[in-house]
């Protein structure tokens, strides 16, 4: 696929030093945070929309698959070149092009790191609401491709609710402007369709983001429970009390133990659950709301309840939750991440099923939930040296997908379908549902070169349906 002529052509577009072809370099771009692997034929690092467009056009002419990549924190294999081809690495396009605070907008390139943007906005009293756990490294381009969430989306919504417009390089290499700097332009919602398309509709090279004023004040409550169910019940009662928390997070015992083993925060390791509640809003009301949440936890026999009001206290209470993923990853040589999501009221029964699945497959499943929106993170630990390890972990993951689908949930809340979950779309979508999605993809990418093998099941016979459109 790769010949010297192509390398030269790529080098003419981005410069020789920004075309990587050495095996040692390529292997660095062959994986992300999932279990998927795929070595690209070349990696290019463009610095402008124009360069991206020329690279993509070249790919279209030569029928070479391409994969856009940001920080590589993807948890479903979305940034891995399964079919080889060219990885378009967007980390050089990391500029905030415009901060238009008067109009609550920022125009950014895809390689801007989420937290860097937040740090830039905070002194002005603004935020970009999506706050995925990976925000220290994950990029806005990735957030847009995956329609990322994060703890705060319980109150503020996910990425798609905070993007006004996109500059998109279509898989043909054509540059288009989707949306605008204003609300609800007439016509079909191309921005909404593009966001969450996991790199299969093209590459967004500029995004117009909608910003929001920071809240006046924030409080965090942490409660420790001897029963996981009690933590879940506390969440239900808080919501029933009409309190809209910005975050409602639960960690189970395995996760707490993992955190204490790696990044000790002084939590007792014999509790069954930690519930973290974050509230924001007017300071006049927060004390009462925080006390109400604490009282609910105490009624449910929480062992300890702590309220953090200052930035320092809050950071301390968040510390365990923020390090949960990294700590769990250190606990085991390998981990399969499942983020099935269920209607909130179905959490208790699905939780019981997950515990049963854990026992039956002799696995440890460390559970961290965005409990407020039903997004369960079941981190399935396994040992690659155990010949049966990955197999048991995958079997457990599939059973969790089924459990979620059976109660009207979905197989992924925020990590994406990527390469890992394509076969399981059928648990929640009919053949007709998938066929209409396939037609959508064919409109944006008739040649099937943009991140092939992702999102939709490949083996479907209807693969070419709708291409004529």
């Amino acid at each position, binding site marked *: 696929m790769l010949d010297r002529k192509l390398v030269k052509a790529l080098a003419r577009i981005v410069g020789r030093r920004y075309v990587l072809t050495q095996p040692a370099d390529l292997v660095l771009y062959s994986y992300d945070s999932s279990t998927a692997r795929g070595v690209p034929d070349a990696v290019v690092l463009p610095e402008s929309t124009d360069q991206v467009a020329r690279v993509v056009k070249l790919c279209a002419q030569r029928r070479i698959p391409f994969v856009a990549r940001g920080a590589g924190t993807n948890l479903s294999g979305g940034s891995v070149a399964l079919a080889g081809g060219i990885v378009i690495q967007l980390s050089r396009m990391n500029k905030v092009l415009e901060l238009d605070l008067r109009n609550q907008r920022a125009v950014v390139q895809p390689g801007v790191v989420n937290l860097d943007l937040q740090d830039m906005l905070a002194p002005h009293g603004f935020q970009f609401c999506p706050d995925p756990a990976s925000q220290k490294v994950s990029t806005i381009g990735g957030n847009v491709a995956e329609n990322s969430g994060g703890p705060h989306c319980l109150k503020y*919504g996910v990425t798609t609710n905070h993007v006004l417009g996109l500059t998109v390089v279509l898989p043909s290499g054509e540059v288009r402007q989707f949306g605008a700097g*204003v609300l609800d332009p007439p016509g079909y919602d191309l921005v*909404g*369709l593009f966001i969450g398309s996991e790199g299969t509709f093209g590459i967004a090279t500029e995004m117009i983001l909608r910003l929001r004023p920071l809240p006046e004040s924030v409080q965090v409550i942490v409660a420790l429970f001897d029963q996981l169910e009690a933590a879940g019940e506390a969440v239900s009662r808080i919501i029933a009390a009409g309190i809209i928390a910005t975050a409602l997070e639960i960690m189970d015992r395995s996760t707490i133990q993992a955190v204490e083993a790696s990044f000790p925060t002084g939590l007792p390791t014999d509790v069954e659950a930690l519930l973290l509640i974050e509230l924001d809003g007017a300071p006049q009301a927060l004390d009462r709301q925080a006390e109400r949440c604490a009282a609910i936890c105490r009624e449910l026999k929480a062992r300890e309840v702590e309220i953090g009001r200052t930035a320092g206290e809050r950071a301390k209470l968040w510390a365990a939750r923020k390090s949960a993923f990294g700590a769990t990853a250190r606990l085991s040589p390998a981990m399969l991440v499942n983020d099935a999501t269920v209607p909130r009221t179905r959490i208790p029964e699905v939780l019981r099923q997950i515990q049963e699945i854990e026992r039956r497959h002799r696995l440890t499943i460390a559970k961290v939930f965005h409990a407020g929106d039903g997004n369960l993170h079941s981190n399935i630990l396994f040992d690659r040296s155990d010949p049966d390890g990955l197999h048991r972990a995958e079997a457990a993951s599939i059973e969790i997908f089924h459990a979620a689908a059976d109660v009207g949930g979905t197989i992924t809340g925020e990590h994406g379908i990527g390469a890992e979950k394509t076969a399981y779309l059928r648990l929640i979508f009919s053949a007709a549902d998938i066929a209409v999605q396939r*037609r*959508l993809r*064919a409109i944006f990418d008739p040649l099937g070169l943009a991140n092939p093998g992702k999102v939709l099941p490949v083996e479907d016979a209807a693969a070419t349906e*709708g291409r004529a459109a």
Partner: protein
Amino acid sequence: MNTLSETLNRLEEIVGEAHLLTATEAVAGYALEGQMPLAVAAPGTAEQAAALLQAASEAGLSVLLRGAGRHLHIGDPPSAIGLVVCLNRLDRIVEYDPDDLTITVEAGVTRQQLQRTAGQRGQMLPLDPPGPQTVTVGGVVAANLSGPLRTRHGAPRDLVLGVRAALTSGEIIHAGGRTVKNVAGYDLTKLFVGSFGSIGAITEATLRLTPRPEATALLAAVLPANTLDGAIAAIAASPLEIAAGEVLNPVAAARLGPSSLPSTPADSYLLCLGLAGPREAVAHQVQEAETMVGAECARIEGEQEAVIWDRLRALAYPRGPGAVLVRAALPISAVSHSLALVSARPGWSAVAHAAQGVIYASPGDQGDLPAVGETLGVLRAAAEQQGGYAVLESAPVEMKRQLPVWGTRTPNRDLMQALKQAYDPREVLGCGRFLC
């Protein structure tokens, strides 16, 4: 190709004799902008809706989808209308578990019915579209309608988690799901939201709800024109619990009516600011709001509060059949200038959802072509120059034929046409009223 009578027989077999109208006097009530439909069918199930769409598509009969018919003024004048499909018999609440803060309803459920159901559990759908409460959920979603509350809660594109829809292929598909977070597959829900019935018939939708606020307050202030820009900037950037911020020019303020409001002299604007949240916060912020907007604020209390919000929603709705109404969207910083442009035209009302950058302008009646064309042109030019747009939402049909309804430019028309083709290959849906 079947004959018309064969097609009508087929339609009747699908919905039953009682739910298919063909007599001239019966279908006359469903005429739109001079186009009289051949037949009107009211399916009782999604399956019937799908069968109707398939039959119409196969017969090449154009289809106008309709809920309560409250927002059919939006769009280009229709080409010939073959079949009107009324979805208002699909009026069941499918699933409502208050602890999930979501509700799944059929398309024909009215906003009123939904609010009553949610209200009994202390919740609400935070969408307050212009006009009557009898608008259906299907209509709100298909037209992506929102109102003052969009400032805080968003539009249907933000609040619809999933839809079930009937296609012209006769298939019923679902997109999205019932959870707030869901990234499984493509976000096809977005294709149906705001598609004005041009892709398929939405038969069911799952929406996010929110708890009703503990307390609300409505504040009214008169702002001299030269202070408006600063006040809008302050409102938009404020961390206070602002639910809505409406700015009215003197004509709009006079049309709003109630004597409980301060009168708005020329060269000034009326601000109606809605606060909603925990009671201590609202109580405190009523005071802070005066400092924020830099003017004395009168608090409107009791029944008047709801009355005024209803009347504000009416200002963004045509005042009668064919009454001219323009909706424009622009950056927040351009709102005050655009309000001034409209206010310079005698008799034109202008009301802005200020922190959203959305403006509604109206001469109050059917207007006359040169004046409407000029105001639309001025507002459209101002909006388009800043990346925005202006839509002529309502006007007499002759006027709509003369003026570009949706705007002067449509970027990505090829992609939109391909989308339309993919789901409605014979192009029977929508009767040419939408862009594609």
